[in-house]
């Protein structure tokens, strides 16, 4: 095959440039895949100082990713202005309400805008006053307080402040804090964990109201409604008659989190960002979780079938098949239309903690081979599968992140399904119950898997293997495009999407087909750079 390049030389070539110690460390994060015999990859460890990384921080993972998409909570960033500013409207978390009477604070940025005096004398009083002002102006049902780097250092206790302010408002407003200082952990991943813990402590289980249909009640975990993905997923579930109790956290509300424990199944999309919540929901309330991927039309069909299988309901099974059949008509037509443009192309995906895996399904549907991939903040289990969990060593950086121990909520726990039953179903349909197989089993032999890709490695990847399309984030976008390779952002889809579900697949087919056939890439060289200029000669 034309694009079948030898990727095995990459590691040694790329690490040459690094200082010795760095080379040694980086070498462990770069592997050639073998789906039959998954190699170990180093992940979730510190980025080496000075290395240009894709990664962000804990605050970004906590405030930006997990809590960002929830519309009816006032999220106050406690810190200097920057962190609040940068996480304001930059993630394309879409949300929709039926009227202006409903709360929607996503369009706002709230900050205590700490000044030097607050650093010197402490910022707790300012934070309290900020909460009071937020209440007076916005009267929200919940307020989140997010700590930035200096907050931890100067010793402001955001949890204590939150408690005090709840008391001041007679506990009528749910106020809670997050110790998500940017220096914690090694990437956004720590922020997800911290966010998950606080969701559990302050929201989940608060409200026993059972809303909507009592049949097929599910939660969707690790879906953030980028580009309207959640809208498409909601559409599909509604069409199938599946009741979506809570989404963590695309297009979500506080009260949906509070009622999440009334569901009977949790679906985990982004394993990395939210598996903690899935586990806690099972431990406390008895809700089993299964891993799904709603990115890709076939994957969506597969996920729906898993749900139907889980509920063991013929009516649902039939309905799901009907929906799949109906939706797949348009999907197939769209796919057929673009296949001539996409088949045989190659892609590379370096982004996030699950998207670099999920999107391979879509590329596969387009006949595009993924020759290299990796996560920005994944752990080994995201690469190699949860089977390696016991063998992952907890290092100092991870140890610093609060681990909470949850126990069964005796009042609310209900066994939805016995382990035996689940395993019986699993034999017929691969539910991925309590399991995630990771990215590597799906990737082809020899493909490059690189964790925490550095700029230098990206540069080399493109230089050595020039793919037809590269997927990463905004910081990488124009670097890659300068080299004449189109880059699709998979954090935020540029301004595209939805890409989830059936209609999302169609959007993705069209967008990728567009990107690999955009004419401007042919015009990068000026004609006078391409050919020997022939000068006209005149006698005069």
């Amino acid at each position: 095959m034309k694009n079948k390049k030898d990727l095995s030389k990459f590691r040694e070539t790329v690490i040459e440039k690094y200082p010795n110690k760095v080379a040694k460390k980086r070498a462990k994060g770069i592997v050639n895949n073998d789906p039959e015999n998954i190699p170990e990859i180093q992940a979730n460890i510190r980025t080496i100082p000075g290395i240009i990384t894709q990664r962000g921080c804990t605050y970004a993972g906590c405030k930006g990713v997990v809590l960002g998409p929830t519309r009816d909570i006032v999220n106050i960033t406690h810190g200097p202005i920057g962190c609040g500013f940068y996480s304001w409207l930059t993630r394309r978390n879409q949300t929709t309400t039926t009227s202006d009477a409903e709360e929607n604070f996503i369009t706002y940025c709230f900050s205590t805008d700490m000044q030097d005096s607050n650093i010197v004398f402490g910022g707790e009083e300012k934070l309290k006053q900020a909460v009071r002002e937020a209440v007076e102006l916005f009267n929200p049902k919940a307020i989140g307080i997010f700590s930035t780097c200096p907050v931890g250092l100067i010793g402001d206790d955001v949890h204590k402040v939150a408690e005090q302010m709840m008391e001041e408002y007679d506990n009528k407003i749910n106020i809670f804090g997050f110790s998500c200082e940017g220096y914690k952990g090694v990437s956004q991943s720590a922020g997800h964990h911290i966010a998950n813990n606080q969701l559990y402590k302050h929201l989940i289980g608060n409200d026993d109201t059972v809303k909507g249909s009592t049949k097929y009640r599910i939660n969707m975990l690790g879906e953030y409604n980028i580009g309207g993905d959640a809208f498409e997923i909601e559409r599909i579930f509604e069409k199938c008659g599946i009741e979506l109790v809570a989404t963590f956290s695309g297009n979500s509300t506080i009260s949906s989190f509070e009622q999440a424990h009334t569901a009977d199944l949790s679906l985990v999309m982004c394993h990395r960002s939210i598996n903690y919540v899935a586990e806690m929901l099972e431990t406390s309330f008895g809700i089993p979780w299964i891993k799904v991927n709603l990115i890709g039309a076939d994957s969506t069909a597969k996920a729906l079938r898993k749900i139907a299988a889980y509920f063991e309901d013929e009516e649902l099974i039939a309905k799901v098949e009907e929906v799949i059949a109906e939706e797949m008509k348009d999907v197939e037509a769209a796919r057929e239309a673009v296949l001539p443009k996409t088949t045989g192309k190659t892609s590379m995906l370096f982004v996030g903690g699950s998207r670099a895996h999920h999107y391979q399904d879509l590329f596969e549907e387009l006949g595009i081979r993924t020759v290299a991939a990796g996560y920005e903040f994944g752990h080994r289990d995201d690469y190699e599968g949860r089977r390696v969990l016991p063998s992952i060593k907890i290092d100092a950086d991870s140890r610093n992140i609060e681990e909470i121990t949850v126990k069964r909520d005796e009042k609310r726990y209900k066994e939805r399904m016995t382990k035996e039953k689940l395993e019986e179903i699993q034999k017929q349909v691969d539910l991925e119950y309590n399991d995630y197989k990771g990215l590597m089993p799906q990737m082809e032999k020899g493909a490059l898997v690189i964790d925490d890709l550095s700029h230098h490695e990206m540069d080399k990847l493109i230089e050595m293997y020039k793919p037809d399309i590269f997927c990463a984030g905004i910081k990488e976008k124009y670097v890659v495009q300068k080299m004449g390779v189109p880059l699709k952002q998979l954090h935020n889809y540029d301004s595209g999407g939805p890409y989830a579900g059936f209609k999302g697949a169609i959007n993705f087919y069209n967008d990728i087909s567009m990107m690999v056939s955009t004419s401007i890439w042919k015009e990068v060289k000026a004609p006078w750079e391409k050919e020997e200029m022939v000068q006209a000669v005149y006698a005069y």
Partner: protein
Amino acid sequence: MLLRHTTPKEIDRKALTINPAKTCQPVGAMYAALGLHGCLPHSHGSQGCCSYHRSALTRHFKEPVMAATSSFTEGSSVFGGTANLVQAINTIFTVYEPDVIAAHTTCLSETIGDDMTAIIGKAKDDGMIPEGKHVIFCNTPSYVGTHVTGYANQVSSFVKSFSTATPKKKNVVNLVAGWMEPSDMAEIKRLAKALEARTIMFPDLTGVLDAPMDGKFHMYPQGGTTVEDMKATGDSKFTIGLGPYSTEDACITLENKCKVKFEMVDIPIGLKATDRFIMSLSRHANVPVPDDVTLERGRLVDLVADSAKLLYGRRVALWGDPDTLIPLCEFLVSLDMRPVYAVTGTPGKLFEARMKEILKNVPEAKFKSGERADMFQMHQWIKQEGVDLLIGNTYGKYIARDEDTPFVRFGFPITDRSGHNYMPKTGYQGAANLVVQIIGALLDHEDRTCPEEKIEFQM
């Protein structure tokens, strides 16, 4: 309504900032550092800072924005960031080979109290800084000032680190560029060239954040002030600082260090500010103003005169940075527009004083700077009495939609449009661009919303 919770009712806020008209120092330091050729900015703090700043600049410029980070962990936060920075310096020079590393601090490293001079000294002692290469730094605590302050601090660090006075002054005028677009700097350089003035501009983002697509990635694009030129600024006969908030500190530093006298002028946005810049340059470079420049000016006057009735009395709300807001407001007033609301998160008394003077014939004007001079405040004013036009960064688009008000994008960041780094707003041509954009925005709105029988076929 996108901002459905914003009402005209103001309360006396003392702590909560809502929808800020500013961001933090380090992003300004990073931006300015990119204006030095061969320089890699370095963020001494958590890797989130660097990621946020690179993202913010990238979204605005739609260009690669390269910078490294010390990648603090909890450990470094406790024990200090020395090891991180020293290792970073080694990694960077080895892997990315810049001529200069321009490190700036963050609220994290500032709160810890990292001594940058000492750390860099240690790196030097440890042999981490190759011969002929430089590590410079500035302190940019996020809890002091704003992104503008960070820019100013970076520019001053250029002077501190490089400017050198030799015994002989040269017939060169330094142009210290305040925070503006690469296109704005290019236009100022074009005007200086038209005057045949010899100048050194610093920082200079031209050719860096408006770089071409040529099929290659250049870690260090062609543009930027060279270290050599930066050193030579100490021998220039005069310095013109463009925008006091972002350049006055550098000018003072340069005068103190190298005895180069300076004058502060506004960033040349609009007719009068450009007039003052041209006059200053003409005077200090000892060059006459050529007819071509007079012609450009006359063309601007012509355009404005032709459009005067469309602009007269229109109420405008603005937000942004003081160095651009001040001349912009002055320009609007010279167009007989009424800048009724203006906010900037950047603190400073100069803004109040200049705005008071500029808006003396606009008694209804409200303006505010510093803490809680935010877009929520401005929007509340708009809710109290509407405006005909919004001018500011992309964060105004929700107000524009909610209030159905024409909107001209100006400032930082502009993430939802292109062209701002291609089309200047400075100089006479830049002012003409602005006028054309303003008129276009007003008329597009009019064309769309007026009764059908009132749709105009002419201006």
